[in-house]
């Protein structure tokens, strides 16, 4: 189908969320914008495969998520080199007193396994249903639910350590708390 005005407007309207998703995934504003750009190029080049009336944001998020994952494998080593620098590259300027809290939260988020991080962001921040998040990630709804729950538990353990004993022994949590890099 041709790119109608309304479809173009809908795509543009999804850009702010796509950027937020890309930054949350990659932790790097420049890379996030590159991801968004590539997502838009792919989306427009493949606009024929979009079914009118279906969930446009979910379609766009799926493209971005797949691009990020294929890119992530290639860039793994570079990312490790740049570890710790991602926060400095963020263009977003939260208010001064919230800044430290933001940093802490971003750092904790970055420590989650990628599967859990994306599930948590899609459901908890982007506001997708579990069903849409499952379709974006290409997995079962139950898998998304369990990833979201594990992501929350780990974030809680990382950020609010006083309650961490309640979560029970979980190797991954302990590894993350211990700062094990592999």
């Amino acid at each position, binding site marked *: 189908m041709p790119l109608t005005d309304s479809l173009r407007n809908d795509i543009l309207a999804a*850009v702010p969320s796509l950027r937020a998703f890309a930054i949350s995934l990659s932790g790097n504003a420049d890379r996030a*914008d590159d991801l968004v750009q590539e997502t838009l190029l792919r989306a427009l*080049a493949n606009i024929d495969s979009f079914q009118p009336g279906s969930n446009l944001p979910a379609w766009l998020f799926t493209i971005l998520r797949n691009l990020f994952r294929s890119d992530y494998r290639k860039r793994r080593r570079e990312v490790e080199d740049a570890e710790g620098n991602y926060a400095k590259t963020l263009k977003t300027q939260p208010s001064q007193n919230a800044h430290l809290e933001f940093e802490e*939260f971003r750092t904790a988020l970055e420590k989650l396994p990628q599967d859990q991080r994306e599930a948590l962001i899609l*459901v*908890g921040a*982007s506001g997708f249903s579990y069903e849409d998040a499952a379709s974006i990630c290409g997995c079962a709804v139950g898998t998304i639910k369990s990833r979201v729950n594990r992501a929350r538990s780990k974030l809680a353990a990382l950020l609010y350590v006083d*309650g961490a004993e309640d979560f029970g022994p979980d190797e991954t949590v302990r590894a993350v708390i211990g700062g094990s890099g592999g």
Partner: protein
Amino acid sequence: MKDLKSQVSRSTTPGKGGLTPEIQSRIGHQLRAMYDDVVRQGVPDRFAELIKKLDAQGAAPQVENDAGSNDNNNGRD
């Protein structure tokens, strides 16, 4: 895209994950604060222009070579 709060609270079975509702809501709040901070920045010109340009080209599938070649559209609208 809606119904976020009810979704979140439905998914929390206090005790099961060991998360108190208070911690749940703190995490949710921070997550959305971080996310919305970016959303509020709106659509950077770069993307509005990109879509306009591709639209004018009829969304030609020139996906590979887009970098560096056209920062300015000299002499074109």
